[in-house]
């Protein structure tokens, strides 16, 4: 690769870091710039709703690297700088301070931001969103024993916040609009199990309730739901999903529809521009459809794939989607993105504290939810990657070693 070329990576989160790391690992000798709007070095976000929020870890423990190590990689790291415009014709990126940076190849790893609730009264209420280090530290200050926390959104983030808050002695109420928790990522069996886990810790779990407005109260605020019910809290955390930060790409005319579109090789429709991580909506060869995972795995591995494809022989990115959550001592791991959770095969009894649910589509595993059973996930991921037809009786039979199904 000619050493006079320039690769610019916009977005210095987990994906941005793995991209620049991979470019150098691949032997790319040109100029590499990493631009990010956060003040911190690239870091992993999962601990921000777990260990950091609980006060068990501090932000530097999440760092993937340091400015010094990036300098050692000859990566020009520009933290605290926001890219505001992309000129595809002139191949330049413009920063908020007016600086223009030219590129030969561009990688967009701009991530996502919390979806806002924007309900009446929200601006006057103590409402928190959780995405970055600043958010986590601010929220942690508020999660003190005896405080009443209302969590709007019973998804992964909302439940991890609820778990952390309960551990810190808060009285927690979770309000979820759907009829069960984490409905997008797990099956009904797991939703019920997790709801009970939180209830056993004293958390109130309310489903099928849609918040309509906030009202101020003398000592906090009240969340009023569509059915008329009102819930009092000292603070509110909203976790209702994320919105891809795709404005830079969209304004430059790239296709954005539920994320920035890339193909299985992490390419946008512009031959000079690639994208990876939370911002993307990518075609998945194994699933044969477009997906927009919001996972640690995708931030890391799609970025590695994109960077490799920018400077080496392109290979498709086709990891089986995978994510995890830690709540109240339970480790939940999730594989795949099944279209439905209708056909479940259980291995082990959830009540025993360790079990795995396989969701089948046409005799193939389309999704897996494992509670405290990481070994099953390792085997299932390989079964899914191989697209193997499965004998459901063997799957359900705990006396059969799961990895025997691989041969």
């Amino acid at each position, binding site marked *: 690769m000619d050493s006079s070329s320039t690769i610019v990576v916009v977005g210095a989160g987990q994906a941005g870091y*793995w991209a620049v790391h991979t470019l150098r690992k691949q032997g790319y000798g040109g100029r590499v710039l990493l631009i990010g709007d956060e003040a911190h070095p690239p870091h992993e976000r999962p601990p921000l709703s777990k260990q950091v929020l609980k006060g068990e870890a501090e932000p530097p423990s999440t760092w993937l690297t340091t400015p010094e190590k990036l300098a050692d990689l000859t990566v020009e790291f520009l933290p605290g700088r926001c890219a505001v415009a992309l000129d595809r014709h002139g191949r330049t990126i413009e920063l908020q301070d007016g600086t223009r940076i030219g590129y030969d190849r561009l990688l967009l790893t701009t991530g996502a931001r919390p979806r806002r609730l924007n309900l009446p009264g929200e601006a006057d209420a103590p409402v928190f969103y959780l995405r970055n280090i600043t958010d986590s530290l601010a929220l942690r200050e508020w999660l003190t024993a005896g405080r009443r926390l209302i969590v709007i959104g019973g998804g992964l983030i909302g439940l991890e916040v609820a778990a952390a808050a309960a551990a810190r002695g808060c009285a927690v109420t979770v309000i979820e609009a759907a009829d069960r928790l984490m409905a997008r990522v797990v099956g009904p069996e797991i939703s019920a199990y997790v709801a009970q886990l939180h209830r056993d810790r004293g958390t109130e779990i309310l489903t099928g309730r849609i918040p309509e407005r906030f009202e101020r109260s003398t000592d906090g605020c009240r969340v009023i739901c569509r059915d008329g019910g009102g819930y009092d809290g000292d603070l509110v955390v909203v976790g209702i999903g994320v919105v891809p930060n795709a404005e830079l790409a969209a304004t430059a005319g790239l296709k954005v529809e539920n994320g920035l579109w890339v193909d299985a090789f992490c390419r946008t429709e512009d031959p000079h521009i690639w994208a990876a991580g939370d911002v993307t909506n990518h075609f998945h060869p194994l699933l044969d459809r477009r997906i927009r995972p919001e996972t640690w795995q995708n931030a890391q591995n799609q970025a590695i794939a994109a960077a490799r494809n920018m400077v080496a022989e392109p290979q498709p990115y086709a990891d089986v989607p995978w994510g995890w959550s830690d709540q109240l001592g339970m480790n939940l791991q999730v594989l795949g993105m099944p279209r439905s959770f209708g056909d479940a095969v259980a291995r082990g009894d959830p009540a025993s504290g360790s079990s795995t649910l396989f969701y089948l589509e046409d005799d193939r595993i389309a999704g897996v939810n494992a509670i405290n059973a990481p070994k099953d996930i*390792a085997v299932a991921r390989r079964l899914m990657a191989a697209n193997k037809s499965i004998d459901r009786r063997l799957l359900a039979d705990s006396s059969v070693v799961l990895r025997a199904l691989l041969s």
Partner: protein
Amino acid sequence: MSNESVTWRRVASRSKLTPNNPLAVEVGDKLIGLYLVDGQVYAIGNLCTHEFALLTEGFVEGEAIECPLHQARFSIKTGKVLSEPADADVPSYPVKVEGDDIYVGV
């Protein structure tokens, strides 16, 4: 590691070790994983260098162990890191087998 500085410790029974089921052992404050690959016993550090996880809880695939948490992979024979997200090797320890006794040199 030179031979003079090695202290051999008996850590497990050879008959307890099977190919896809590594054993976790402790020698002093060292966490060590024992593996059986092609009839040969290997010992490497059991703590993933990325985040806290016992590698012996992970998945053995040929000569590699995959971390149960984030799928970093390490060579069972050398401890060398093979894939992200870890970027540091785990230590590798000398092993000798006498009868049914596995000894690890630390």
